[in-house]
């Protein structure tokens, strides 16, 4: 049975600017299955961040509809319910933390929902443990690394008990080890707690573990499929302005020159194995 947490129909969105009316999102249709891990790939300006903000009702559609668990994001009575269901993590870890103590920041969401203090305490501890930041609960965010800050931001969302987390380029401002921390955390949440994940990124190697990859450009979805299928289309990805991982590109070049290697592989180990098989 298909159970969709997010349903988007004929979505249009344009910023209010009378002089040059140009749609950022054009006729976008998308269904996101509950419990899935979806990666949306696109270069800067492809409309992917705008799409993220449309998912939890921060932006309201200009045309078409966005439904979260069947609730329209334009329904003002459901505003909190929607934001509680779809949590958001943004790009800049510094600009989304509110309090100067980690645990108080994580408590911010539940506090706004008016939850009883002892339950907030439980949720905060649980959230911090699930992102592995419990031992830093009394630190100040300014003393944490980028990856740690981003994990705190994720904990802040988890504390609201969301069914879905939308992450808008959460790793764009992090160093490689911070990136890995964040990706591992997201994967863990998806696999262990069954939280639906929508990861928006322009790093293709983050799409490796996804159930489904969407490629976006000019405000519309150009391709949709399993990671391996998408990654084998190197020419197409390059045309969309995406940086293809070196491993994928190597295999692509090899196969283009007549070597029999499977394409659509991302990890360095698998690439090495695939090449080793040739000899």
């Amino acid at each position, binding site marked *: 049975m298909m159970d969709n947490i997010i349903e988007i129909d004929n979505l249009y969105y344009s910023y209010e600017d009378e002089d040059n009316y140009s749609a950022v999102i054009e006729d976008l249709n998308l269904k996101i299955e509950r419990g899935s891990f979806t990666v949306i790939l696109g270069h800067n300006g492809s409309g992917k961040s705008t799409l993220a*903000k449309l998912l*939890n009702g*921060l932006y309201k559609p200009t045309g078409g509809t966005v439904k979260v668990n069947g609730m329209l994001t334009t329904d003002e009575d459901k505003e*909190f319910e929607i*934001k*509680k269901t779809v*949590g*958001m993590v*943004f790009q*800049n870890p*510094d*600009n*989304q*933390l*509110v*309090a*100067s*103590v980690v*645990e*108080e920041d994580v*408590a*911010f*969401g*539940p*506090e*706004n*929902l*008016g*939850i*009883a*203090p002892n339950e*907030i*305490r439980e949720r*905060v501890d649980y959230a911090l443990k699930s992102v592995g930041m419990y031992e830093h609960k009394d630190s*100040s*965010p*300014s003393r944490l690394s980028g990856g740690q800050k981003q994990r705190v*931001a994720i904990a*802040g*969302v988890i504390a*609201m008990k969301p069914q879905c987390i939308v992450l808008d380029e959460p790793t764009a401002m992090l160093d490689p080890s911070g990136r890995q921390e964040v990706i591992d955390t997201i994967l863990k949440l998806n696999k262990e707690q069954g939280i639906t994940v929508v990861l928006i990124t322009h790093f293709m190697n983050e799409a490796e573990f996804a159930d489904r990859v969407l490629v976006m450009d000019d405000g519309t979805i150009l391709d949709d499929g399993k990671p391996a299928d998408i990654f084998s289309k190197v020419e197409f990805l390059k045309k969309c302005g995406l940086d293809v991982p070196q491993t994928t590109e190597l295999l692509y070049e090899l196969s283009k020159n007549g070597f029999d290697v499977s394409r659509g592989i991302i990890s360095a180990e698998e690439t090495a194995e695939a090449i080793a098989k040739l000899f």
Partner: protein
Amino acid sequence: MIKDLTIGQYYPVNSLIHSLDPRFKIVLLVVLLVFTFIADNFFALGLMVAFVLVVMVISKVPFSMYLKNLKIILPILIFTMLLNLFYVADGVVLYEFWVIKITVGGISRSVFMSLRVILLIIISATLTYTTTPNDLTTAIERLCSPLRFIGLGSAVHTMSMMMTIALRFIPTLVEETEKIINAQKARGADFESGKLMQRVKAIIPILIPLLISSVRRAYDLAEAMESRCYNGGKNKTMMKQLKIKNGDIISTIVVIIFCCSIITLNIFF
């Protein structure tokens, strides 16, 4: 690094004073400040000094930290001393030269006044040394919460939210300022030499990028807060509940007894 700069100079140790409820701490220390002025003879002030010394010891904050605070106000201290020394003409004259006349009354007055200033500084420093800025914010919000009965509830919330965000962003903005300064220096900006006006003008290329980036941050933060169901503090609960502990009640009693003794000493001497 400036990043490690602590706002409000909190000194992290575990002491009885640190563990007090910040609301009680604020009220009790304000009472002590008031009584520093009420104590109007050497006996009362002596008791005050003794009490504050005990508080300093209990707080486990090193005396050198308190001295650092006093160093800052040294000019004011000296000014107070000299002013009282020369202007109070009372009692036996010890030294007289031209218009300067030093009397016993003058000396005692100047010692008295400087002790008062020192006490004021130490008492307020105790509050900031033993209470984190966050606790202070929370305590101020709670102490102001009765204002909601006269319709100022959302104003109190707004104020405390502003304080929280300001505290949160000070280190971030300091770091950002450092980055901008370095970036401008790398492009040949000169902040160290030149006349005053030139130096003031040199700050502009730091301030403008800082302002712009702060506005951007504000937009981002607003969206992040909205995504986390922030609605201006309506029906907001608090995870951290301030609980009145035995220590708070005992310290209140101690301070009350102390205040009574000050009044008694004032009356009898």
